[in-house]
């Protein structure tokens, strides 16, 4: 047979290339097959004879069929109306064509049998490869690509869909109409196969990235339209439009699916878009929704279940192959899928809340709901780490920087403690985020002062404590029960404890339960030892005790609370201080009675004292200056009285610490002021003496005052400014500075009062406030201690010989109990001072003692 074919083919070209079929009349001149006898008449029905006839028949049929199937060589113009298109592209099927098609397509037609092996019997394949493919590549594709390239995304997609739909319709037409009828049952399968090939062609040839981009944008737009606000009450109008959009989208997706653009590719894009939608929905709907109790998670679950999932199901259904009767695994939505989406939603919500966390905490208490949401999220170690690390970096960036005041940082830290206690009662997360903050706070100088100040602040008195940590005072007053600490201590050993829980898995090795949850406790424990805290407390307490009148309820309360935390012994000094003040009143009354200090005439001054046990008080200002003789005599009488009352104890007067009520009788007015002692002393110096001319106001120069009062420059200056501010004194000359008493307020002075003197008065107030602290600051104390350190330096240099600065500092750090509080620079300047006064030699970088 093969040989026969070859010979045959050498004479007649293969039929597919024949444009004009062999006419039926042409005599058949065939060579006989191998081993066949030449054609005698009775062999007319021989296979050779037969196949030749069949061949002609086939060829003719093929010709008819192919010319029916050929497409015009021009692009399909989608803009034309349907009729034009139909006329142009869809040919009517003549009976002849019908027969030819039937012949060629029928499995058992003889012509087909003959050509079985030559691979050229498949009309449909020919149609696809030679007609459709060629037409598509040549005319359709360039147009399609042009469509994709123009207009704003995703506009081209619609056009593309329509165009493709049309193209597909036209290409498929012959298969639908005549061929499917002819093929009967197998027709649908054939046409499906053809369609699949066509879809493959479309997806392969169209630029993927453009199509995906368009599709993604389209889906994103539709999703946001359809899924937006579906859970919030809305106008019916919106509902219908939403429904409309939804229907249109679904329809469009079905169209895309029908032209093959809805396959796995599109499903993947859809999945991405849905994930995005979930994120953006959560972000837009729940960002800033921090109210408590929070129903956000429930709302979100509801939304996912009813809106989100429903849409996904519909979309997937529209993207599924219509033909495929059974939904395949990937597009089926099960209940567990919905649950997974809800979990994803919770995670995305968690991420959102984590980003918001800092703001939530800054606005703490308002944002309690956000913490509740977050609580649903921090259930696995991964998310817990995410929350803490993200939050820590935000804190480091936004809070722990020089721009933030210590009060702010403490405020936020308190909020963090509260918020994280709600978030994670076990305290593991708090422990993690608090560490860097605590480390940072330790570096700030004023932390202790602010914490102690906060503890002692009066929450009712809003005016005076502008930036103090009122929070702490509030916390202090409500937090009376301290059971947490005891529980934590023996919790691990209590074998009867049926509520015992193991430490969380991600707890650090030093984790201690509820260690940090109590605000005051964690602030107080900022520093390694209580000493710093107690010392600061002592200073501030001293200050307040000396300033205030006899009303120390708050101080007593705070002291009692601190005693519970620190133990009695640490706070003994404070206890003594408090008692000193309270005892003073008694002692004062007693001495007054004993010494009959009150029985003097009206004009003489009164003297009341605070008697301090100097050992237990922080270092106090002990400047001395001249005190009016009346007061001095009172003091000595008072001392006598005291020594009689408390034997073997002695009074040392601290002039700078007192307060005086001064009443000045001027010519036209009386001024009464509550002032500091040195201010009183200064104005007393303007009291007229015998040498003064009584007719003119008293004038004193700065130098005179300095001499007579034995006061430091700054104090004197301060006092003069104060009295000028009060319009009692007036600077009458600048060189040398002299001051005169304003016995009468002249008009111009009165006029001035409203303007400049107000400023002066303000300056005087601040001057007083600045000079007022009764307790020496840490630095001042340290300066005093420098004398002691000098002894160390002397000892060191006497015994160790000459030493460089660095070594001296190191030795001091090691040997001074409690550590050496100065740095290299301070010590250097101190030592240089000693070199100047000739106690030290400095040579070759080393200090040496001078013998």
């Amino acid at each position, binding site marked *: 047979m093969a040989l026969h074919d070859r010979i045959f083919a050498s004479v007649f070209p293969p039929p597919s290339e024949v444009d004009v079929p062999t006419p039926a009349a042409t005599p058949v001149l065939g060579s006989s097959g191998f081993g066949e006898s030449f054609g005698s008449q009775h062999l007319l029905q021989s296979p050779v004879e037969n196949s030749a006839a069949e061949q002609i028949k086939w060829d003719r049929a093929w010709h008819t069929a192919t010319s029916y199937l050929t497409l015009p060589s021009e692009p399909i113009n989608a803009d034309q109306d349907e009729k034009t298109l139909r006329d142009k592209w869809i040919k009517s099927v003549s009976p002849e064509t019908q027969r030819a098609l039937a012949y060629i397509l029928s499995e058992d037609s003889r012509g087909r049998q003959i050509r079985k092996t030559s691979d050229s019997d498949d009309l449909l394949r020919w149609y696809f490869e030679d007609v459709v493919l060629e037409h598509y590549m040549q005319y359709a594709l360039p147009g399609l690509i042009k469509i994709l390239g123009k207009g704003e995304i995703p506009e081209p997609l619609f056009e593309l869909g329509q165009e493709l739909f049309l193209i597909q319709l036209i290409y498929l037409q012959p298969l639908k109409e005549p061929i499917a009828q002819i093929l009967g049952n197998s027709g649908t399968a054939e046409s499906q196969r053809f369609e699949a090939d066509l879809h493959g062609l479309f997806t392969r040839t169209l630029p993927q990235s453009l199509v995906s981009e368009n599709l993604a944008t389209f889906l994103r737009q539709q999703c946001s339209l359809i899924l937006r606000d579906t859970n919030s009450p809305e106008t019916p109008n919106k509902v219908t439009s939403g429904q409309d959009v939804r229907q249109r989208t679904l329809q469009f997706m079905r169209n895309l699916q029908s032209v093959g653009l809805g396959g796995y590719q599109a499903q993947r894009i859809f999945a991405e878009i849905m994930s995005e939608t979930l994120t953006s929905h959560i972000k837009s709907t729940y960002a800033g929704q921090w109210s408590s109790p929070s129903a956000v998670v429930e709302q979100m679950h509801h939304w996912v279940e009813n809106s989100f999932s429903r849409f996904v199901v519909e979309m997937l259904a529209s993207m599924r192959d219509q033909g495929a009767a059974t939904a395949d695994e990937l597009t089926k939505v099960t209940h567990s899928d919905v649950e997974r989406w809800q979990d994803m939603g919770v995670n995305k919500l968690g991420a959102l809340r984590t980003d918001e966390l800092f703001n939530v905490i800054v606005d703490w208490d308002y944002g309690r709901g956000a913490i509740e949401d977050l609580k649903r999220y921090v259930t696995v170690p991964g998310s817990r780490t995410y929350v803490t690390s993200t939050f820590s970096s935000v804190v480091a960036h936004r809070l722990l920087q020089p721009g933030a005041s210590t009060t702010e940082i403490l405020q936020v830290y308190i909020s963090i403690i509260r918020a994280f206690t709600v978030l994670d009662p076990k305290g593991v997360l708090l422990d993690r985020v608090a560490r860097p903050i605590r480390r940072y706070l330790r570096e700030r100088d004023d932390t202790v002062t602010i914490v102690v100040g906060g503890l002692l602040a009066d929450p009712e008195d809003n005016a005076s404590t502008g930036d103090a940590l009122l929070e702490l005072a509030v916390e202090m007053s409500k937090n009376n029960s301290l059971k947490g600490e005891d529980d934590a201590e023996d919790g691990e050993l209590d074998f009867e404890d049926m509520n015992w829980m193991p430490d969380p898995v991600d707890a650090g090795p030093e984790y201690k339960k509820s260690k940090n949850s109590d605000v005051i406790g964690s602030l107080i424990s900022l520093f390694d030892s209580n000493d710093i805290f107690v010392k600061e407390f002592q200073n501030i307490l001293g200050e307040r005790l000396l300033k205030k009148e006899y009303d120390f309820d708050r101080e007593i309360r705070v002291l009692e609370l601190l005693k519970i935390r620190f133990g009695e012994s640490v706070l003994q000094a404070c206890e003594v201080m408090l008692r000193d003040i309270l005892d003073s009143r008694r002692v004062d009354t007693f001495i007054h009675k004993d010494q009959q200090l009150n029985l003097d005439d009206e004009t003489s001054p009164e003297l009341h004292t605070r008697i301090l046990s100097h050992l237990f008080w922080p270092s106090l200002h002990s400047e001395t200056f001249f005190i009016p003789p009346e007061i001095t005599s009172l003091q000595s009488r008072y001392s006598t009285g005291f020594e009689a009352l408390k034997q073997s104890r002695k009074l040392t007067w601290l002039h700078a610490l007192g307060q005086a009520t001064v009443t000045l009788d001027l010519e036209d007015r009386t001024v009464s002021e509550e002032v500091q002692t040195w201010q009183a002393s200064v104005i007393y110096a303007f009291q007229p003496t015998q040498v003064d001319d009584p007719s003119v106001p008293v004038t004193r120069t700065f130098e005179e005052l300095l001499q007579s009062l034995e006061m430091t420059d700054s104090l004197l200056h301060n006092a003069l400014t104060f009295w000028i501010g009060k319009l009692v004194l007036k600077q009458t000359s600048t060189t040398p500075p002299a001051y005169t008493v304003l016995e009468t307020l002249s008009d111009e002075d009165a006029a001035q009062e409203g303007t400049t003197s107000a400023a002066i008065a303000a300056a005087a107030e601040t001057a007083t406030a600045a000079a007022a602290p009764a307790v020496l600051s840490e630095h001042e104390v340290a300066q005093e201690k420098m004398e*002691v350190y000098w*002894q*160390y330096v*002397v*000892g*060191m240099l*006497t*015994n*160790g*010989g*000459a030493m460089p600065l660095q*070594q001296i500092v*190191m*030795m001091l*750090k*090691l*040997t*001074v*109990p409690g550590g050496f509080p100065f740095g290299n620079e301070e010590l250097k300047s101190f030592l240089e001072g000693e070199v100047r006064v000739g106690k030290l030699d400095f040579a070759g970088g080393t200090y040496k003692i001078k013998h």
Partner: protein
Amino acid sequence: MAEFAMEDTQNSAPGQPTAHEAAKLSSTSRRQDAQSVTKRLQTELRQLMLSSTPGVSAFPSSPENLLNWTATIAGPSDTPYANLTFKLSFQFPANYPYAPPTLLFKTPIYHPNVDFSGRICLDILKDKWSAVYNVQSVLLSLQSLLGEPNNASPLNGQAAELWDSDPAEFKRLVLARHQELEEE
């Protein structure tokens, strides 16, 4: 048999701490000792600094180790040692103050109770030591020893003899022997 032997050693004295544990225990106690010694020495140093006794002073020699001190004594004015200063080294034991510190004269000194390598014969530094003594009292004792040597138990026989017999020669020898230490 080897197995048995091994088991034996493992099970021996179950209540006793093993050698390792014992080492750990003693090291803890030693550390505590070291801490208390440091504390005690710091306190002594502070007292010394605050009370500043004329003629004697002492200070730790190096920042690394508080157990080594250097002290300086000025010779009492009415003795052959007048106007001389002497440096000493203090070596405190780990269980100070329950054991006396070891003292050595670093400055060469000619004295009946001090030998040529600087070792000192003083009862309170040996059997008469008590925990109530401190650096200051030891230094004051040494200062008075300079003026009143204990010639009954001399480390330097010649000096003991000369102290009584020939004060002038003694003074000459003292000055000859004395030389300022070069400062490191």
